[in-house]
């Protein structure tokens, strides 16, 4: 047995135990990328650096055995900076997008590539679920959204962006789904003031969590500006009515023709557990309901939308006039999460946004690589003309134009998780031109993108251990080293029996199974549940 101290706590471990394992036994997670349970230590990523308290020196804990009398510190400012720097160095040569550019650009943060893939697979109902996860009014926005996502689309560099907005309209119009209100009803009551896009979305997403929602509006009918400011030929009445009905049917109580004066508002603050102000651009009130505000609108916390009053939240054009319905709709979703945190007595953080690796624009050398997962067809214009949406065939064909820029490891990439945890800045070491993306897509169920590889060697060591005839190897050395298949063999010859094991062991998205993706929900404790979509 070996007795050592980790973070001033004594621990006994068996001889031969690494310092990293010893730390893990004491419940301390030491970050690592090149470590693999089935393999010997390799000492590549250097993320597991810890400090020997006696000498003050850092060493990689995965590769050093615990010895008697060791005094180890697993986290302090210096160690934190070391790991952050290591991550930033790795990220500086890690070329790839985590979330697709369209996904990041969407003010409602909708998983567009997943929607595209489900449409391409003919799974319109599932595609609608994916849209409604973030956007409560798919058919409406499918008609009026200026589509910032299309501006960010990588395909734009190649020919024209994917017609995301029309695809969303198509699933909104053609897809069928039932809203899934939480099976466990709560005792909480929330008032949402204003039934425009922000208020409607907030009401919907709050209601899905099993919370009672009362939606107020000064107009007799819900819809706000959507009902009054948009021409019938752009947004037909029945489309709006259908989508509002879908929301109300989840159990949202609507009280129309009801202006709320400051006095009533004060009462509401007490009678409801929380209030969401979604009153739109308003009538130029300087301090609506006495909330702290600027000339532009109500002041809120940027992440949680909480106002200066603890149980009052504000969203949409009440904050500042943007005339971007999709942003209002997105905020409606986000505020639901904040309210959920608030009601559960948690610290308000707002909806978590993970670190995203981004590499900028596609360059011409990369077009053919990205087209390996797409089709060369031009952007499709609906046959029925501008006012008509896509037919099913058109939608499928257009959705197939999506380049699959999003990473398949988006939910299980250790590099991303640590980059997020250590708040790494990918641009810190942007000191020279990036590498060109390539995609090895010849394997039937996995894909290899070498520029995402961090050279941890897990695949090399696993294929060696399991006796793959070709397997992976290091080719070249130093900064230019690549992990590849010897003798330019096909990927399918490199990975036979080990394919799944290797794909699952890759700490980044370099080697990944061809899965469609997922959408996630985070509970109040920050635990995430994900819904996977297979094609």
């Amino acid at each position, binding site marked *: 047995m070996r007795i050592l101290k980790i973070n001033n706590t004594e621990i006994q471990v068996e001889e031969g135990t690494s310092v990293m394992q010893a730390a893990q036994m004491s419940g301390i997670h030491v970050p690592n990328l090149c470590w693999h349970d089935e393999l010997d230590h390799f*000492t590549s990523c*250097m993320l597991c650096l810890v400090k020997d308290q006696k000498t003050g020196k850092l060493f990689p804990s995965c590769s050093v055995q615990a010895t008697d009398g060791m005094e180890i510190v697993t986290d302090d400012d210096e160690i934190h900076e070391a790991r952050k*720097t290591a991550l930033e160095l790795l990220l500086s040569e890690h070329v790839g997008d985590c979330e697709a550019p369209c996904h990041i650009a969407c003010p409602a943060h909708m998983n567009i590539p997943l929607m595209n893939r489900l449409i391409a697979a003919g799974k319109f109902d599932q595609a609608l679920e994916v849209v409604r996860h973030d956007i409560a009014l798919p058919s409406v926005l499918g008609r009026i959204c200026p589509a910032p996502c299309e501006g960010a689309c990588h395909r734009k560099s190649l020919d024209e962006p994917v017609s995301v907005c029309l695809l969303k309209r198509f699933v909104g119009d053609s897809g069928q789904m039932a809203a899934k209100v939480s099976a466990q009803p709560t005792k909480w009551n929330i008032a949402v003031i204003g039934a425009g896009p922000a208020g409607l979305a907030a009401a919907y997403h709050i209601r899905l969590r099993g919370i009672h929602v009362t939606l107020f509006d000064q107009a007799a009918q819900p819809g706000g500006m959507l009902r009054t400011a948009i021409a019938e030929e752009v947004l037909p009445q029945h489309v709006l009515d259908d989508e509002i009905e879908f929301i109300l049917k989840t159990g949202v109580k609507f009280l129309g023709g009801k202006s709320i004066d400051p006095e009533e508002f004060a009462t509401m603050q007490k009678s409801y557990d929380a209030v969401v102000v979604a009153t739109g651009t308003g009538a130029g009130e300087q301090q609506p309901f006495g909330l702290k505000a600027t000339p532009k609108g109500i002041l809120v916390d940027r992440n949680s939308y909480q106002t200066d009053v603890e149980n009052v939240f504000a969203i949409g054009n009440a904050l500042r006039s943007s005339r971007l319905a999709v942003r209002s709709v997105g905020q409606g979703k986000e505020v639901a999460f904040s309210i959920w945190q608030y009601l559960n007595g948690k610290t308000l953080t707002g909806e978590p946004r993970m670190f995203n690796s981004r590499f900028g624009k596609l360059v011409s050398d990369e077009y053919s690589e990205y087209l390996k997962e797409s089709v060369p067809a031009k952007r499709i214009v609906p046959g029925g003309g501008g006012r008509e949406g896509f037919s099913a065939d058109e939608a499928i064909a257009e959705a197939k134009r999506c380049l699959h820029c999003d990473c398949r490891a988006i939910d299980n990439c250790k590099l991303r998780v640590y980059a997020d945890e250590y708040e790494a800045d990918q641009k810190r070491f942007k000191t020279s031109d990036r590498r060109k993306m390539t995609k090895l897509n010849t394997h039937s169920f996995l894909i290899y993108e070498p520029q995402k590889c*961090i050279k941890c060697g897990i695949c090399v060591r696993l294929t060696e251990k399991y006796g793959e005839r*070709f397997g*992976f190897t*290091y080719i070249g050395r*130093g900064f230019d080293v690549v992990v590849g298949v*010897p*003798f330019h063999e096909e990927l399918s010859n490199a990975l036979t029996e080990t394919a799944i094991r290797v794909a699952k062991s890759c700490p980044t998205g370099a080697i990944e199974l061809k899965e469609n993706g997922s959408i996630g929900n985070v509970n109040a404790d920050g635990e995430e549940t994900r819904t996977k979509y297979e094609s």
Partner: protein
Amino acid sequence: MTKNFQNIDRIITEKGSEKKNLIPILQAIQHEYNYLPEEALKYLAGKTTITPAEIVGVAGFYKQFRMQPAGKHLVKVCIGTACHVKGAGLVNDAFRRYFNLPHGTDTDKTGKYTLEKVSCLGCCTLAPVVQVDDITYGHVAPDQVDQVIADFESHQGQIGTRKFRKADGSEIKGEIRIGLGSCCVASGSGEIEQEVEKVVSQSGLRVKLKHVGCVGMCHQVPLVEVVPNEGEPTLYAKVKPEDVKSIVEKHFDPPGFFSKIRNKLFHFAEEIQTDRNWDGVQRYEISMREKPVASFLGNQVPIATEFRGIINPLDLEEYQRRGGFSAVMKMFQSLTPDEVIEEVKKSGIRGRGGAGFPTGVKWELVKQEKENKKYLICNGDEGDPGAFMDRMLLESYPYRVIEGMIIAAYATGIHEGFLYIRAEYPLAVNRIRKALEICRAHHFIGENIQGSGFDLDLKIYEGAGAFVCGEETALIASIEGSRGFPRIRPPFPAQKGLWGCPTLVNNTETMAQISYIIREGSGKFNGIGSDGNTGTKVFALAGKVARGGLIEVPMGITIREVVEVIGGGIANGRKFKAVQIGGPSGGCIPAEHADTPINYESLQAMGAMMGSGGLVVLDDTDCMVDMARFFLTFTQDESCGKCTFCRIGTRRMLDILENITSGKGKPGDIEELEKLAEWTKKGSLCGLGKTAPNPVISTLKYFRDEYVAHINGVCPTGKCIDMITYSVNDNCIGCTLCAQKCPVDAIPFTPHEKHSINTDLCIKCDSCRAACPVDGIDVR
């Protein structure tokens, strides 16, 4: 259709078919094809237990291996430190232009020549150096590349077989010693040798022609020393073939009256025929009593280089006559292994590879290991681009290195050992191979050495080109047939080394000093130098110094003594700016700290390190940011790529340095560079990465103002090509020399008028400035 690979079958039979044989197999295949054809490698994978992943992994790791066919002839441009400071980059560019090589290619269109940069040819005193196949050209200027190729082509097919003339001992009137170190050979000592043979055979003289190892005075090569039986020996420097006859005749009378007449007549006739205008031999004669030579050699203490310039590297009998192997005999007769270790410990010798770990302590650790199988490795994987000590020791004193290994093996209970030698040192490999054969024949290695009952088998392992393999765990991985990836220590090789067995790894220079300690006693060794830093250290002195060469100096000597006394100060009257000590792991120490004594601790305190022993002197024309960039280019290229901080950290540091030296530096770059240097040092796995930032850190410490100047758009020394422009000043006399030399016609041919340079066309090759007779070209 698969090719018939009988040759590969033969190689496998010769070299073996296991993973540990992989590097020798690949070397043999490359020897066969000039590169490694993929089909041949596939065949190899099919015929052996070595996997495709192992083959491709190893083939791609080592610099020696080419995956693409090379041209018929290899043009190697040395870009070592000394060559770099003397303009090797411009020479390389000139070759690229000459061969018309587009970016990304290195073989000319006809497939005749392949251009290659090599990190050091070990002829630092002839910098800049270019090697075309086996012919080495020194002091090559960018505008001479066409002459180099023309000369090479004129020698094609002329290379005759070497004759060897053996004189009859009784009638020998003396000997003529010819230096055969790589520098001497490179500078043409082979031709001198042929000429001496010719002269001697024509004259019928009874003199012995003797090959000696490196004298160390590499700035004077080729060297010929004439040692008559009576009278003083005379050393001739920078000898040309046409000088040989006069030199020989000056010292030796040809036998018999008629011969003499005949000889004189012959000489006379030849002089008329060739109309050679020759201004006498005196110019090349240097006497040991003359001041420069006395200064160069007099301040040195030869231990590893004992009897330099005197003994024939491979003459075993002579080695023994001069005390060689007496340490081994003494040891077998009267010393137990523990006593040997005690003696080595008392001597205070520390590892000469650079880190300075006490050698005796290391030996003790290995001895304590109880395993039956242990290995000994002599580390001769010298990769520092400005150092060639190991090469010289192996070439010139092979027996001394072997003797040190026998002593080490006996002391630690080892019976099997390797000499790991860079394949770029073919002469060293050959000498050691022959020396091992001779030692085996004379029972200095093999079973029951000299009747002592002690067995030791020694083999050569040829490295394949990877600086990182100087690191002991990477070196071991390489002998095992793997990529030269270092691994974390502990376990140290002394506990778990080669194939998991306890392994003693000592540097070549350490090995070369051991026999002296045992023969002369530890007291004599530790009487040199100071406490904790005893004995001597060999350095490769090069750069802007007047007299470069290989020197062995007592520990504690100051930098000033080395540069000013031994090296004769700065050449061409320039100002002494700094010394770069320790190569890519070391640092630059500025002239104002020249009184720093050279020992492990003081160098480290100054931000440099002993390192491998490269000592490159810099003058006021050298840009310190460019020096930092130069070393980072090297370490970045040599990083094995295993750990994050070294693989990417060195690259990002280099990026920043490249930006700074190309005028793209921006505020904050210096600070980021400093931070990154700190983390690369702290976070890297092995010594390569941990020391790679030293050249940056030390130049930032002493020459920060130069970095700041670059950020502000000025390279103070005008070295950084992207930051300078060439122009003609009023000194111009309109002689058109510059216009004639300009390779891109950027200077119009305007005789008798002040010339001008079209800066749009100018490629800053420096040819005009070098050609101008009146200092009429400004570089700003």
